[in-house]
């Protein structure tokens, strides 16, 4: 974890509401692991006051390149769209734990929805390089909202689910969860409802799964106890864990929905 002044290489709209921010941040790029995130602000002011958590979508330690894909939602992300080439931005990162990839893993399923897709791309790449066979299911509102689909295709087979049916299956990503394949691991990031469903389906098929959670954050680095989720300990006790420090990736089974 460190605070780095990154230089903006590019910042452009790629989908309705989705933007892509390319940064030169060599120190963070050197350390970041798939699934980790950063705290980001574009404001030189006390409003917005808090930094925004953003997953890392591309990590290139060699060139120091880092990419974020962000959904424009409220004030903080709106300000991000004002960044132009060569401007500077403070990043705190890399933060949190990362997707766990086990040596024994041969085949994995990645399920992404909404802005959660972004943090799964470096995982797909990692799995690919580790010779894990990867299936990817991406869910979105419509074709226009599918992001990174082409890039995922470099690392595995990709299928889509869109609510309006404009691309792939018409419906939810979880509707096309492959019942017949014995994955070694399922990785999911997306809306809470989707992840809960994925955990449920995986449990049914006795496949382990990992999910990346979101919660409003004060600090992003573990000091404020703001970003907790309920986790069931092996002894059955439910405890609160910090998403920013103990997560954002949790074993699906331990999350108490």
């Amino acid at each position, binding site marked *: *974890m*460190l*605070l780095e002044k990154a230089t903006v290489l590019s910042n452009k709209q790629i989908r309705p509401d989705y933007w892509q921010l390319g940064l030169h941040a060599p120190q963070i790029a050197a350390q970041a692991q798939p699934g980790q995130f950063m705290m980001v*602000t574009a404001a030189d002011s*006390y*409003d*917005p*006051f*808090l*930094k925004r958590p953003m997953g890392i979508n591309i990590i290139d330690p060699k060139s120091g390149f880092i990419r974020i894909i962000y959904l424009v939602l409220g004030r903080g992300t709106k300000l991000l769209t004002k960044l132009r080439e060569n401007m500077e931005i*403070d990043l*705190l990162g890399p933060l949190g734990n990362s997707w766990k990839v086990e040596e024994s893993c041969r085949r994995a399923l990645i399920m992404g929805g909404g802005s959660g897709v972004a943090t799964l791309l470096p995982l797909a790449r990692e799995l690919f390089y580790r010779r894990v066979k990867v299936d990817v299911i991406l869910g979105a509102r419509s074709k226009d909202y599918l992001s990174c689909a082409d890039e995922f295709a470099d690392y595995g087979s990709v299928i889509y689910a869109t609510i309006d049916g404009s691309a792939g299956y018409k419906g939810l990503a979880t509707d096309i969860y492959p019942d017949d394949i014995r994955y070694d691991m399922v990785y999911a990031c997306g809306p809470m409802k989707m992840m809960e469903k994925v955990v449920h389906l995986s449990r049914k098929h006795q496949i382990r799964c990992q999910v990346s959670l979101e*919660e*409003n*954050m*004060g*600090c*992003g*680095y*573990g*000091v*404020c*106890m*703001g*970003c*907790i*989720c309920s986790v069931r300990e092996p002894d059955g006790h439910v*405890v*609160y864990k910090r998403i920013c*420090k103990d997560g954002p990736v949790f074993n699906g089974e331990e999350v108490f929905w």
Partner: protein
Amino acid sequence: MVDLRLQFAGIQLKNPLLTASGTCGYGRELAQLFDLSILGGICVKGTTLEPRLGNPPPRIMETAGGLLNSVGLQNPGVEKVIEEEMPFLRQFDTAVVVNIAGHQEDDYRLLAERLDSVPGIAALEVNISCPNVKNGGMAFGTQPATAARITTLVRQATSLPVIVKLSPNVTDIGEIAKAVEAAGADCVSLINTLMGMTIDIEKRRPFLANITGGLSGPALKPVALRMVWQTYRAVSIPIIGMGGICNAMDAIEFMLAGASAFQIGAAAFHNPLAAPDILADLTQWLDTHGVAKISDIIGEAQC
């Protein structure tokens, strides 16, 4: 170069900057960003007798110039703090202040007794002002009589310096400060958070699961500064000021208003390096302004 050392209320500080309770955990995470020994002190997360889960999420919501939190004193309990956190904190050359909070009045006495002989504690900060717990917390800090009673309990249970942390959610903070001074407090710290709320208009319910939360950050700085100013005129024990301090200029305002030292809280969310940055800028400002000893500016604002 300005002499930043301070000594008051039986507390020795290498400089006037402490990190505020609940915004620096037990120091472990900040230690990854800078050497904790640069700090005047560190006030650990509000510690209770038993472990506490705190309130359900969501616990944090941003507001204009600040944030609301409803953490509700999540902590591992005093025994774990003594066993697991104190040894870590003792490694650093900084004043460790343990912030204590109770459900009932007697909890404060038990906490003070338990912590009295633990090595490496510079002072106890008695939190009678947490707006995020149902029993105790702020309810204790808004009535002079209760505030005084808890102060006396703690004072009698420990030989450590006793700092009483005051709530801003009162009509007259000077009155509460006087009550705890009379009850034996060595020092007061203020302010804790102002009670606030925010509503999710789509869901038509309060955004925070706890309904209300505590407001902190620069938004409330003018209120905090006014309260320090009023308290300085009400009591003669030293004051540790806080509430929205985000830069060295803010800190100087608090000291000029009467604070002997200051804490930074939410600033560390806006800028994780707020502590070292403020210390550097503070030193530079004092040097440029020919201040020989930091204590020379305490309460120096005149009207």
